[in-house]
């Protein structure tokens, strides 16, 4: 059954015999608008052959649609729901709760009270560690947590932008982790090997990081373009290759700290690190400004540039792009290279911003977090920026939480992944909160509706 065949019967355009064309057109227009709506709901209601045809493009298209059309309410509720679930987990595992629950049936309020205080204390600590420290004695110590959040958010935003940009080109870039590592390796090497004047040195470090990430990701783009290999598999494998490669580098004399047998590099030169943004009282560095600039740039690139048009076309429908003279291979390679360069910036933020040395753990788990950041940000540049800050806050606050209430920072991973899961499945969230389902209800109404426009994100 062909898609157009039966589900989009267009009355209106059919066989009316118009007295005059002009008249007919006016009446038809109205008719048409109605039909369009009908067709749209029909699409939603019965996962339309057109949108669900079994081809790879459409799979990624639904993904894109899903990422970009979920509404703000669902996003908010997802965050709330995840925090509640995380809180439950904290409460259940809390020793005080455990003690109180042994006499639950005699004094249930003890258990509930203990549970409430366990979860709320943890979250209060999380908040104080990430936004403002209400117990701070000076202005500096009050806003210090916020600057910590921004510092942690910097690599998340950069790498998240890389993942988001690749998404928009129809590529599932799981490889930010490896790209950050290789970018950091390039940047660090320039940072501790070359000794150059201030300014120039940092510039070269940043460029080297971007080039490193771009090469590593570009390779994936090249392999995909030339051989059709799936980028998900490629990027996963490249992550592990990168880790081992960096470990190898750190065992060579070019990278290993003189006199050390540990896999750790020398410190980067003072000229090679990001200057601090707010003075020595805070760890926030100029890398954050770079992240803001990167966000603006990605927004422009995707929505206002011919390159972005090409990438989006390749992502939304590769065959149509090809037929329109847009090189799909070039699109894949370019999208991955830019994505890698952005991840490379995240690597620079690590080695030049916070760590100042290269280790195999320099990327922490930022590469994987970046995926969740991009998903939460619905692959739009500013959405990714906001999601980066949110997850940055979780991480920064998580450290404080772990220190003050002993709640393991791993809870942050749980909350983060729950958020992304819920956001990806709006019908589940709506069902849980008994929200009305938008659009028509019918068989398979869980499928996304056609987005108004891919260009409208951001």
């Amino acid at each position, binding site marked *: *059954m*062909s898609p*157009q*065949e*039966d*589900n989009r*019967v*267009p*009355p*209106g*355009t*059919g*066989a009316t*015999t118009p007295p005059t064309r002009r008249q007919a057109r006016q009446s*038809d227009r109205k008719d*048409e*608008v*109605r*039909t*369009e709506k*009908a*067709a*749209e*709901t*029909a699409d*939603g209601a*019965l996962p339309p052959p*057109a*949108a669900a045809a079994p*081809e790879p493009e459409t799979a990624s*298209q639904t993904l*894109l649609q899903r990422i970009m059309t979920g509404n703000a309410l669902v996003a908010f509720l997802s965050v709330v729901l995840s925090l509640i679930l995380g809180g439950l987990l904290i409460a259940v595992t809390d020793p005080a709760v455990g003690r109180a629950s042994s006499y639950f049936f005699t004094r249930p309020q003890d258990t509930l009270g203990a549970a409430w205080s366990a979860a709320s204390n943890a979250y209060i600590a999380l908040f104080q560690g990430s936004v403002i420290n209400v117990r701070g004695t000076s202005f500096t110590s009050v806003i210090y947590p916020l600057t910590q959040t921004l510092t942690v958010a910097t690599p998340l935003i950069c790498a998240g932008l890389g993942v988001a940009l690749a998404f928009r080109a129809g590529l599932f870039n799981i490889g930010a982790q490896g790209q950050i590592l290789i970018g950091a390796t390039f940047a660090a090497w320039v940072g501790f090997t070359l000794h150059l004047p201030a300014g120039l040195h940092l510039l070269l470090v940043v460029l080297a990081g971007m080039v490193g990430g771009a090469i590593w990701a570009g390779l994936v783009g090249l392999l995909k373009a030339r051989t059709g290999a799936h980028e998900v598999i490629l990027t996963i494998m490249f992550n592990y290759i990168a880790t081992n490669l960096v470990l190898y580098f750190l065992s060579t004399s070019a990278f290993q700290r003189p006199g050390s047998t540990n896999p750790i590099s020398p410190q980067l030169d003072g000229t090679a690190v990001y200057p601090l943004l707010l003075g020595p009282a805070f760890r926030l560095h100029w890398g954050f400004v770079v992240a803001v600039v990167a966000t603006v740039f990605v927004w422009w690139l995707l929505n*206002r*540039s*011919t*390159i972005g*048009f*090409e990438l*989006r*076309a390749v992502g*939304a*429908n590769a*065959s*149509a*792009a*090809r*037929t*329109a*003279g*847009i*090189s799909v291979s070039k699109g894949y390679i370019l999208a991955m290279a830019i994505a890698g360069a952005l991840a490379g910036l995240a690597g620079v933020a690590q080695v030049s911003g916070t760590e100042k040395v290269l280790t195999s753990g320099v990327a922490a788990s930022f590469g994987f977090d970046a995926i969740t950041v991009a998903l939460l940000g619905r692959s739009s540049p500013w959405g990714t920026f906001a999601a980066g800050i949110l997850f940055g806050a979780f991480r920064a606050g998580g450290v404080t939480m772990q220190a003050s209430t002993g709640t393991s920072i791993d809870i942050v991973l749980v909350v983060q992944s729950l958020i992304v899961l819920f956001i990806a499945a709006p019908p589940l969230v709506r069902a849980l909160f008994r929200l009305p389902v938008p659009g*028509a209800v*019918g*068989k398979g109404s869980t499928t996304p509706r*056609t*987005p*108004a*426009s*891919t*260009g409208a994100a951001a």
Partner: protein
Amino acid sequence: MKLELIGITKRFGSLVANDHIDLVVEPGQVHSLLGENGAGKSTLMNVLYGLYDPSEGEIRVDDEPVVFKGPADAMAAGIGMVHQHFMLVPVFTVAENVALGNETTKAGGLLNLARTRERIREISDQYGFAVDPDAVVEDLPVGVQQRVEIIKALVRDAEVLILDEPTAVLTPRETDELLGIMGQLTADGKSIVFISHKLREVKAVSDVITVIRRGKVVGTAEPSASTTELASLMVGRSVSLTLDKAPATPGEASFRVRDLVVQAANGQRVVDGLSFDVSQGEILAVAGVQGNGQTELTEAILGLQDHVSGSITLDGVELVGRSVKDIIRAGVGFVPEDRSVEGLVGSFTVAENLVLNRYDDAAFARGLSMSPAAIRKNAEEKIEEFDIRTQSASSAAGTLSGGNQQKVVMARELSRPLKLFIASQPTRGVDVGSIEFLHRRIVAERDGGTPVIIVSTELDEVLELADRIAVLYRGRFMGIVPGTVSRDVLGLMMAGMPADEALAQAHDVQGGDL
């Protein structure tokens, strides 16, 4: 087995695809469902086959009401379906495909394919199918794959066989053979629901014809009804099957193809040594059954094919080996055969789609920076000029109806100076109102002095538009004949007969059916 559909209604949201349809299929009959693309035939059959739940109405088998929760129920009731796009697992053997869903097993749930093979051989012998149960389906030609589909239904003891547009992928000869098989089946007492929009075939095989338009039954007809009668019933008004067009005034032969060979990835020569010219101000139609190299021919011209040898020149400039972008810039307008896959980005706006291959023109972009205002203005002009029915220029192109999507593609391609215009299946799946409009625009482009190539598998369209007709068969031209040639000659050529023989034979047997 007698099958009745009573008041079947199927709604998708507020869209009514089938509106109170009544249908009775008597045993041993061929009952044709005739209707345009999008009339609701396939939806109705999907309801009958249990793939969709009807919103209202009832299905009766031998006067007993039945409810089909899924295809399994329909099959159990004796209904079999041959889908337009075959439902065969390409990497499975014939036997595995036939066994699927209807497996015979040995102890421990292990498959017993021997039994299935035996059944395939029985049926194959009975109807002269010559199908090897151990062949892998993806290696089989489409005609044979279709027989595998029929075997699948017969193995399940189908009494009513639904054939959904079964001739779309067949040569005229294969079509004749299929019609023969249908005769054998009805002689055995089975009934057939034959879905088609091809009037000639419907007239040739039917016992009863039901015509569907916009989801409703608009009438029944005897096979003896005239073609124009059926056509006007199907379309809803009297249709002039001919287009007003002035005779061509061909100019210089500015587009030349010499010894063009296109190889598929497996090395097969899908276009096999074509040489032809197209003059300015003429329409060359390329006819032929689907899958005889048409796609590869047009894609080779646009630079989309990889293994191309020979020469393609436009105004003396060689196109082979150049990039798609260069070829588009050289003035080639291209309407691909599957607009939703190759012609449009469904999630892009109409405005973006209208500049899909010109987004980096000086008119729409300065350097890397695009101008949204210019793109929008262009869209508003084109929407007006081509009468594109859309809510706004910023609606997603995917929400438009088929005809309007095609207008977007046409508007994009025809709104720049062209030196060659190629359109594949320009009106496939398009409603009749839009067809006329699109045909007029194509002829207007010809009259403006552009060489035009139309590729179509619909003989009606070919005969309507063509000044000359080339028939492709297995990658070769069977000849290039004038646009006034008879349908019989084209039919013979499409089955692989060279033009001169076809002309001679058609002269001998006047009045052949196809």
